[in-house]
């Protein structure tokens, strides 16, 4: 077994701790936090009001996900302390929220200078790039390749929704697409969770 085989085994061990739907739940909650404010803002609420109104939902869901992971999933998977190289890479995950804030600030600046651009198809491209960049960074630091695909799916909801709004003529299509995709991811998370619970029983120690 050479170094590359060892790295493959180590990577397989690490990613086995992320097969119970945690990533999918997080992606679904991320999309919920995009779609719900968009829906509220189209119902007459301001952008900031909409985001604040829906924040408690996302927080509660995140807490539920973390509690399930900590008290149900991890006891079934076991405790591991990964090697320093892996821990160093994980510690750089803190860059992901930093990247999100920077990307959001840049997009916010672009639209503050060009407010009408936001309602065009082209104006959705900066919004689409944010999740692609953020999920790609998370995929790199977590070494979980499917996050690259999830980032593209999440990003794609922006131009797709705006295009369908233009074609169908309804302003609620974009949030509807985001919410639908969010529920698909949350559904996947539940399926993976159930599969994981059936595969890994509570250990009799």
């Amino acid at each position, binding site marked *: *077994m050479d170094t590359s085989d*060892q790295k493959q*085994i180590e990577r397989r061990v690490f990613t*086995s701790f992320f097969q119970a739907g945690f990533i999918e739940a997080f992606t679904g909650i991320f999309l919920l936090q995009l779609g719900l404010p968009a829906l509220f803002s189209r119902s007459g609420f301001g952008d900031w009001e909409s985001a604040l109104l829906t924040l408690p939902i996302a927080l509660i869901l995140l807490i539920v996900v973390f509690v399930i992971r900590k008290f149900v999933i991890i006891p079934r998977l*076991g*405790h591991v*302390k*990964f090697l320093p190289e892996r821990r160093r890479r994980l510690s750089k995950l803190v860059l992901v929220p930093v990247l999100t804030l920077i990307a959001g600030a840049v997009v916010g600046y672009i639209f503050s200078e060009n407010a009408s651009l936001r309602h065009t198809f082209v104006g959705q491209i900066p919004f689409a790039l944010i999740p692609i960049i953020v999920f790609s960074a998370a995929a790199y630091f977590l070494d979980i390749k499917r996050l690259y695909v999830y980032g593209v799916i999440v990003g794609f909801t922006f131009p797709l929704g705006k295009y369908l709004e233009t074609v169908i003529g309804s302003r609620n299509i974009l949030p509807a697409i985001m919410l639908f995709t969010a529920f698909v991811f949350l559904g996947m998370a539940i399926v993976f969770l159930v599969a994981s619970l059936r595969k890994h029983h509570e250990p009799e*120690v």
Partner: protein
Amino acid sequence: MTIDRLVHSPARLSILTYLFVVEEGDAVYLLNQTGLTWGNLSANVTRLQEAGYIEVVKEFKGKKPRTLLKLTHKGRKAFQGYQNKMKGLLDIKSPLP
């Protein structure tokens, strides 16, 4: 050429492999990764511990007991030595044309 027969067993090789790629792991982690039964895992861990390849630490996390295992320096060297020996054996070219 002698092979370390303590390492050269499917169950113990599996245990050593999954401990080699982490700093430490508990028994549940090894059970999940190796697919061994409790009894099989316990027996082989005991043999490796007696040889000084594995360090076993029993602790409590809250009220639940937890058994942590990690490779000792001797264990890591033994595993790497086994790897190199097997690589050398398997790299032999056929003397026949």
